[in-house]
């Protein structure tokens, strides 16, 4: 299997901050690799290096066999970039944005208009084609941004947090588009803060933290390491906390984490059936709960499990 992207020992410092601190990354052709990490983990810096927008301080990277520093032009003819912030011109309409990019890619006037119409159709933006991009909803903007990155039929696509700030409906739309592209053989490097997104789209996941790769693997491998789901209980009365902690501990075989301030007890579970068992046992003991839920692991928990420390956001 040949590699579309290969990066070795990428380093990028901004003064004291090590945005990238020796990153290795391999993306096989036609696959989706998800880069998962909190804000400031170095995800965007890595994408900018691989998209020839930023020179690494050390290390090297090739895209489609071309060095990103020595031969950026060859790399640029292969890639499409969808930035973390939609990088279309807000004043221009959907059509104008795409025609401009097609013209810059040396399409003829008529060819550019045809390509724009084709992409607008494909992304279901035909009705809004003549409107300024600033009037688009978040999801439409992101779709236009995706369309813009596809004008030149790239074989490698960078999606830098493509769904950050989108509502679930718009997020699903973007996911559907990405799946379609992958089905057509496009290689995708996806950065995201959401485990679920990486899980949905990526063949393998690379976890970044403070400019380093802290874990790599298929989504199911990583999830196993994180420990599946979590059971949360908050008894109505704090006096019941000891009893509930014992019940939950007996049930899961793990000592539950306990927050005395909020009265929340948390324990990892592998079997969802335990939820109903817990309800019955609490009922038998005559204890009521304000909160009782089965949750998927959050990014915080992935991080806690993979790095042994909290993400910066959850510390605050």
């Amino acid at each position, binding site marked *: 299997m040949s590699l579309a992207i290969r990066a070795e020992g990428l380093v990028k410092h901004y003064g004291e901050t090590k945005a990238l601190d020796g990153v290795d990354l391999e993306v096989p052709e036609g696959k989706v690799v998800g880069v998962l990490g909190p804000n400031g983990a170095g995800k965007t810096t890595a994408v900018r290096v691989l998209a*020839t927008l930023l020179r690494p301080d050390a290390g090297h990277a090739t895209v489609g066999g071309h060095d990103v520093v020595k031969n950026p*032009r060859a790399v640029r003819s292969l890639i499409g970039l969808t930035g*973390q*912030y*939609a990088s279309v*011109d807000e004043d221009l309409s959907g059509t104008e944005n795409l025609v*401009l*990019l097609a013209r*810059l890619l040396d399409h003829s006037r008529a060819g550019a208009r045809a390509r724009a119409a084709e992409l607008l159709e494909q992304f279901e933006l035909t009705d809004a084609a003549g409107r300024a991009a600033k009037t688009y909803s978040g999801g439409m903007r992101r779709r236009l941004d995706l369309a813009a*990155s596809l004008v030149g039929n790239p074989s490698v696509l960078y999606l830098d947090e493509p769904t950050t700030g989108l509502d679930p409906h718009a997020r699903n739309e973007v996911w559907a588009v990405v799946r379609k592209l992958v089905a057509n053989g496009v290689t995708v490097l996806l950065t995201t803060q959401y485990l679920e997104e990486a899980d949905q789209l990526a063949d393998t996941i690379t976890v970044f933290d403070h400019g380093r790769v802290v874990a790599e693997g298929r989504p199911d491998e990583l999830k196993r390491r994180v420990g599946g789901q979590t059971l949360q209980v908050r008894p109505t009365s704090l006096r019941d906390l000891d009893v509930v902690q014992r019940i939950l501990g007996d049930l899961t075989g793990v000592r539950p984490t306990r927050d005395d301030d909020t009265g929340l007890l948390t324990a990892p579970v592998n079997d969802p059936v335990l939820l109903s068992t817990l309800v019955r046992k609490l009922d038998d003991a005559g204890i009521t709960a304000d909160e009782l839920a089965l949750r998927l692991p959050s990014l915080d928990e992935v991080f806690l499990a993979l790095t042994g420390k909290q993400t910066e956001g959850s510390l605050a």
Partner: protein
Amino acid sequence: MSTIALDKGMRHGFSLAWRGILKIRKNPEQLMDVTIAPIVFLAMFTYLFGGALAGNTDAYLQMLVPGIMVMNILQASMTAGVQLNTDVSKGVFDRFRSMPIARSAPLIGAVLADIVRYVVCIMVLLVVATVMGFRVQTGPVELLVAVGLTIVFGLAFCWASVFVGMLLKTPQAVQGMMFVLIMPLTFGSNVFVGTSTMPGWLKAWADISPVSLMADALRGLLNGGAIAAPLTGSLIWMVAAVAVFFPLATWAYRKRV
């Protein structure tokens, strides 16, 4: 650079200039921002001080309009830096840079679109001035030369704006900085008043400032009178501005994008 690459660079530059012109059409108020200040000054100075300064407002208007054209073009040339900075901070440039186009194309595009902006600005100003009573005393050829010269002046000084635009972080900072630079440059000249009553140090500067010399050259072209000396002076200033700010601007541009 080979001729083919250069040709491509220009073609991409034209495509990006088309974008700039589309933006002018969609946001005319942005253009008004830079045109309105000179028009306010034109009206204010003519009707408030014109009589006191030149005996009557009509005579003052004839003296003031060429000077205000210089002020106007400097204000308009400020937009290049603001626009480029906006593109960089909004991520539009990242898209262009991730494409196989010449690095200079966005810069070429911005400057070409500027020419259109300058023409519109000067036209608006001249129409307002004519309504107020300004009359070209010479002829259409002189008028055309004056307009052309003003545009070239703007193009020469827009590199300062591009330089500042690439150095500062936000478009607002660029706008503020350019305003701070342009205001003293415009007022410390013979645009509004003659330099004879200024203190020695200021007069020394105002007599040789690019704004004064350019204003005098335009007065010669539009009202009749000496042209050669102020024109030579302004051309020297334009060459100097390009010699200093073009390398600085392209250096800052390469560093930023």
